């Protein structure tokens, strides 16, 4: 409720701005799989370390034309998260400023629907950074891969207790896990899972 109100006001405000087109409904057949690596797990405090996005067109995952951004080192970059995503302060020296990165990201995704693993988390972190800089939240439709899988499994095999780890789902769908805990790797794997699920992997198997 609050979110849709917010979207309406955002849309009014941006109607004649640079990003007005983002609020138009999407008519194409593409999706964008996204993933972020952050400094923590709490969407209220976590800061962005890297963002990746891969387009999906039909059966094809367009990895040749993917977006993989690294940001400047945020203040809260600490040992705990480095252990997961393995991006050290040094690795981020060449990184982009937050504003530049988000603008590139918006240009890349456009108004396509967003796909992600627990995508709500990624979107809320991005929104927290986006609102102060550009004054709106991401208006895109979002599809959460974890939920899609759960729903599909419940539809086809209601008696099965779904096992909802990233790796175990990848295995169930026969998708190779590529570069786990790098933004681009996770985004690509999620994209492959989606393509796979849409082709009826569960029915067949």
């Amino acid at each position: 409720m609050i979110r849709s109100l917010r979207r309406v006001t955002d849309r009014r405000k941006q109607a004649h701005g640079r990003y007005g087109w983002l609020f138009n409904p999407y008519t194409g057949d593409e999706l964008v799989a996204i993933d972020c690596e952050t400094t923590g797990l709490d969407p209220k405090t976590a800061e962005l370390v890297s963002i990746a996005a891969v387009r999906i067109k039909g059966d094809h995952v367009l990895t040749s034309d993917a977006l993989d951004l690294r940001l400047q080192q945020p203040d809260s970059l600490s040992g705990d998260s480095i252990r997961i995503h393995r991006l050290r302060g040094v690795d981020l020296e060449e990184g982009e400023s937050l504003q530049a990165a988000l603008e590139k990201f918006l240009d890349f995704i456009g108004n396509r629907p967003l796909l992600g693993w627990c995508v709500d988390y990624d979107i809320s972190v991005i929104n927290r950074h986006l609102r102060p800089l550009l004054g709106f939240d991401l208006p895109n439709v979002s599809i959460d891969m974890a939920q899609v899988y759960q729903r599909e499994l419940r539809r086809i095999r209601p008696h099965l207790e779904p096992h909802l780890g990233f790796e175990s789902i990848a295995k169930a769908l026969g998708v190779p896990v590529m570069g786990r805990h790098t933004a681009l790797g996770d985004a690509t794997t999620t994209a492959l899972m989606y393509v796979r699920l849409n082709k009826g992997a569960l029915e067949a198997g």
Partner: protein
Amino acid sequence: MVDIDLSQAPFSLLDEAGKSRVTNGVDMAYFDTGEVILDAGQSGEYMYIIHKGEVAELDTTLPDARARIGHYTAGDVFGAISILNGKSRYRFKTEQETLCYLLPKVIFEQLCDAYPTFGDFFRESLANKARLLVERRASDGVSMAGFMLARVAECMRAPCLANEATTVAEAVAMLNDQHADSLLVQAVGQVGIVTKTDLLNALILQGHERASPVLGIAHFTLVTASPDDYLFQALVSMTRHDVARVVVMEGDQAIGVVELTDVLSYFSSRSYVVSLEVEQANDLEALARASARLPELVRALMSQGVKLNFAMDLLAALNGRIISKAFQFLVPSQQQSQSCFVVMGSEGRGEQILKTDQDNALILQDGVDWPTCGDDMQRLTETLYMLGYPPCPGNIMVSNPEWVNSESGWRRTISRWASRRDGDSLMNLAIMLDAHAVAGNGQLLDGIRQHLFDSCSHDEIFLSYFAKIALRFATPLTLFGTLKRPAHGIDIKKGGIFPIVHGVRTLALECRTAPTSTLARLDALAAQGRLEKEFAADLGEALSLFAELRLKQQLARLDGTGKTDSDPNLVVVQSLSSLERDLLREGLHIVKDFQQRLSHRFHLEY
């Protein structure tokens, strides 16, 4: 974010920059079971690299049972030919859910331009692909592989030249100055050689004067090589002629000498040592010791990436020497010149690398007086068994009186076989056709072979019967689908080696070509215009490929690592690398093509 194995061909032909262009340029796509990825006639937009899954290549113009012409699994590449030709000739259909990497046409074409070898990989015929494989193997092999590819020109030394007027004393001085072992004497229109041993014998034993001309002691029958020959071939001719140097000739000009010691400094493997041991053996036990070292030699040659036909040549020469020695030990010298010991079958063709069985026969001159012949031959067979040649299961050995006969007896037998044309007779004729004399008087065999040609080569009906055997086993191409389970394998002997060997044998019989090895027959047939040059070369390559695959399994079995209970002729496709699989597939295609030609030529379609 792409993990393709880029260490296999064709990607191994790219450098780092090229590889990163591949990794950054590919897209990914999922295909369901039974989905058509690329249809016949469609234009090729991508080169596909399979990450997971299986894809079949179908020829839509053929009926269903024969339509499957290719099979690709993880790591294989397809679709490249479609890009090069503009459109696909075949239909590619998934057999399992398949995850592919897609390399767009544009990038593929850029790569072909930037790396000619990469592009060539897709354009080349089988022969060239096999060469790539060998060269690559050679390049990661050790020093000897370099030796194998070395030419005679790289290893020869400038000749020490003398003229007609040079005296013995001057010759010795020249040899000392130049630290050489031999000198060449140029006389009117010909070149002779004088070695240190010759000089020594001349001075001491024959009592020549120091001032007598060196021309008188020179030998004019030379073992020669051309500067473009492989060094290995020079070594083979040294082994064969039992000499320690070959003269390098260009036209009729001697331009250098290759000394054995020079070759050995290049090449510290065991082949010469073994052949030396064979030559020096003066009793059967020593001969058996030398003979037992052959498998070791084969393994050394194989691991160093020697091309199989050279290895076959060397091994055939060595086996011939061993058998001939054994013959000399056991047969009285008077009868040696009145009889001819021939090896037949694979040994006669010089294609038996490891000793698998002995197929041999004896031809006696008409009217020879040799009462103990039967006993002597029994002993010879036993001796060969002791030397490591297992007995022939079909009893085609000299211990069997049926395979010992006089010249006229052999002629009668051959005529009888040729008129009978039943299975056994045809088999016997095929074996006889490959006969190669290793000991005794070789002219006897030439006479018999002439008779064989005379009685068979014009008889079209006989030739049809003879050729039909080559079609007895279908090429295992259509079996690919059922080979997924690892327990099975394809029979490479029945499906690949036998059709080529026998088909070529039939053509050789028709054209009356004298050489017995399949590769030499192919050369002769190509020279006569009976086969196209390219096709003959492809057949030869296919044969060496099959023989090599089989040899690998035989060696593994000798090591005790391979499964000893399995047949070494069975090749399990899944255990091959993707390039080998690719080669095998193309090789079998060539066999199939050859069988079709045979059935067309000899009217076997019914």
